[in-house]
């Protein structure tokens, strides 16, 4: 469902050019659970942000469900992001003065869903992450692990087909990290494609596929069909 061909990304500042990604070619199929590993600064977050259409790229192409995202308008990209993609961040990124419920509601608001539909989806997501009783709490009243589960609930409330997680357990202790991993696996089993950046070799092993990035270049340990044989 995701196809990257010779994709490159260069960050330019006044002083330097950083080649964050060089000639990345990658194919991710529906339902995969892939771990992205690599040293710090190797381009993992950049890759994830490009996959999430939060960041543009300089050359190459990105096909999502067979369609290039090049040249799509802001509104189209936003809609695509809203409907197909869920984000989870290392630092949770919950809005501090919104209740748990209101935080999860955000992406549904932007989709323009009716109140009843929103409510039903939020409750379902809360149920899944096991925080139904805390729906009116503020984020600060929850533990880190619980906050990350709220963030997961927010990411999946819109029923995306792809979940992009950037070191989701980076700020958590091992017990909470395991709970979050189990949750992600459960979500993956329901059919959601997951790409997760991680530093934890155990987690990487538990994922079905391990993609390594070093210095902006991909070293995929898993077999996939070379693009040359695919129809364009």
């Amino acid at each position, binding site marked *: 469902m995701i196809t990257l061909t010779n994709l490159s990304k260069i960050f330019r500042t006044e002083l330097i050019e950083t080649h964050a990604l060089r000639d990345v070619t990658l194919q991710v199929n529906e339902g995969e659970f892939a771990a992205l590993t690599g040293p710090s600064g190797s381009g993992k*977050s*950049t890759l994830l*942000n490009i996959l*999430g259409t*939060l*960041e543009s790229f300089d050359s190459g192409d990105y096909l999502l469900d067979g369609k290039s995202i090049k040249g799509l308008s*802001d*509104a189209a990209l*936003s*809609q695509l*992001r*809203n*409907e197909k*993609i869920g*984000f989870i*961040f*290392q*630092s949770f*990124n919950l*809005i*501090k*003065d*919104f209740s748990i419920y209101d935080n999860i509601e*955000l*992406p549904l*608001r*932007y*989709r*323009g869903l009716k*109140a009843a539909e929103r409510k039903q989806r939020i409750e379902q997501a809360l149920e899944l992450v096991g925080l139904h009783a805390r729906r009116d709490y503020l984020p600060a009243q929850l533990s880190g692990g619980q906050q990350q589960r709220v963030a997961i609930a*927010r990411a999946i409330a*819109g029923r995306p087909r792809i979940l992009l997680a*950037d070191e989701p357990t980076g700020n958590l202790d091992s017990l909470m990290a395991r709970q979050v991993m189990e949750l992600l696996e459960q979500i993956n089993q329901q059919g959601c494609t997951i790409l997760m950046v991680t530093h934890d070799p155990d987690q990487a092993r538990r994922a079905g596929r391990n993609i390594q990035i070093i210095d902006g270049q991909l070293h995929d340990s898993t077999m996939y069909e070379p693009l040359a044989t695919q129809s364009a």
Partner: protein
Amino acid sequence: MEQFIYYLKVSLLSIKRAPLPYALTVFILSVGLGVFFANATFYYQLNSDPLPGKSDKLFFPMTLTPYDCNDCRPPRILSYSNVQKLAASDIPSAQAAMYSSDGYARLTIDQPPTPVVIRITQRDFFQMFDVPLLHGSVWPDDNGHHQVILSRPMALKLFGRTAVVGESLLLDDRNFRIIGVLDEWQMLPRLYDANGRNHLTANEDIFLPLETGYDLNYLSKTNSQTFDDTDYRQLATEGRVGALHQLQYWVQLDTAAQQEDYQQYMQSLAEDEKAAGRHPAPINNQLVPMLGIVDYFGDDPGDIKAFALVTLLFLVVCLFNASHLALNRYLSNQYEFSLRRALGASRSQLQLQMLADVLLMTVFSLLGALFIGYAGVSLMNALLPQNSLFSTWDLTLITALILAAFTCSYLVTLYPSLRASFGSLNQQLKE
């Protein structure tokens, strides 16, 4: 709609997050707008058309220059005999000569006298300048009559009531019958009195027929000129024949044809006078329209204009400051923009959020500005009482002020929020 209420709620929440910087932003904006409002009030009233629909039909004819000069204007005040020459024309639909003087009024000789300003004029004056009569009528003709017309406040002051037609009063201890009382009336700016800054002052208290004013030796209290050494304090005997210039003269010319005819009439008149040796200067006739009169005589209050400019600059400075504060506020919330983008908000959705911010900012700064503007107007009235005539707020002005507040709030919010929403998206979310 439901969605917009949600945006408003989000705006309020983000204000609650850091109320102090927000209050400061609103305060700065309120001060800038308030000072601007206070001044705009004066400026607006000063430049408004006092007789919409009619002002373009009223003209101030300038002709008959009794002195020798090159390239100079005819005098802005006329002698009695020159007014007679102009008044001989029947081209204008209405015409009136006028001047103002001071006096004292009372009802009986044992009362303390009240100082009054007298407008000494002719009957067409009331019709030309749409002066509303509450009781009675104006003089039957332009002859002398011991009859006066009172302004409403003067009637109330002297009698305690307005229905006083038929009563008498003493004006400089001479007996006059009251034949009319005006309704509430304040022409602003009072352009018929094109003399220095008279157009910024209040209307007169008592109206006296022109002939009676001359008979009783009332001299102009503002502007008069003589071109010989006659003693014009004897107005009754000398004023009508000699070269005492003290009359302002207005004509009503309804159509372009009338105006052209009148120009022609002034030309013939000036040529006749020249032939008779009474017009040594080159002919330089002017038919000045009422709305142009202040500019024409250069009586434009330059200080008010300069002050308007200063308050406008002050507003701009306030805008910069408020915008700077708002930028800090948005930058500290920037991760939230990025987050909303990541969750699928389009730029136009973020801009709706921004519009909610603008509306709230408008409401708050407008309230502050109205308060400060009101205080500013009150202060100016206390310092410059003659300006108090110009401190009323009407619907047009209020609407303009609301628009100004919205525009300023928009400007203050626009740049910061655009910078925040178009900034690098992912940067804030990474760590």
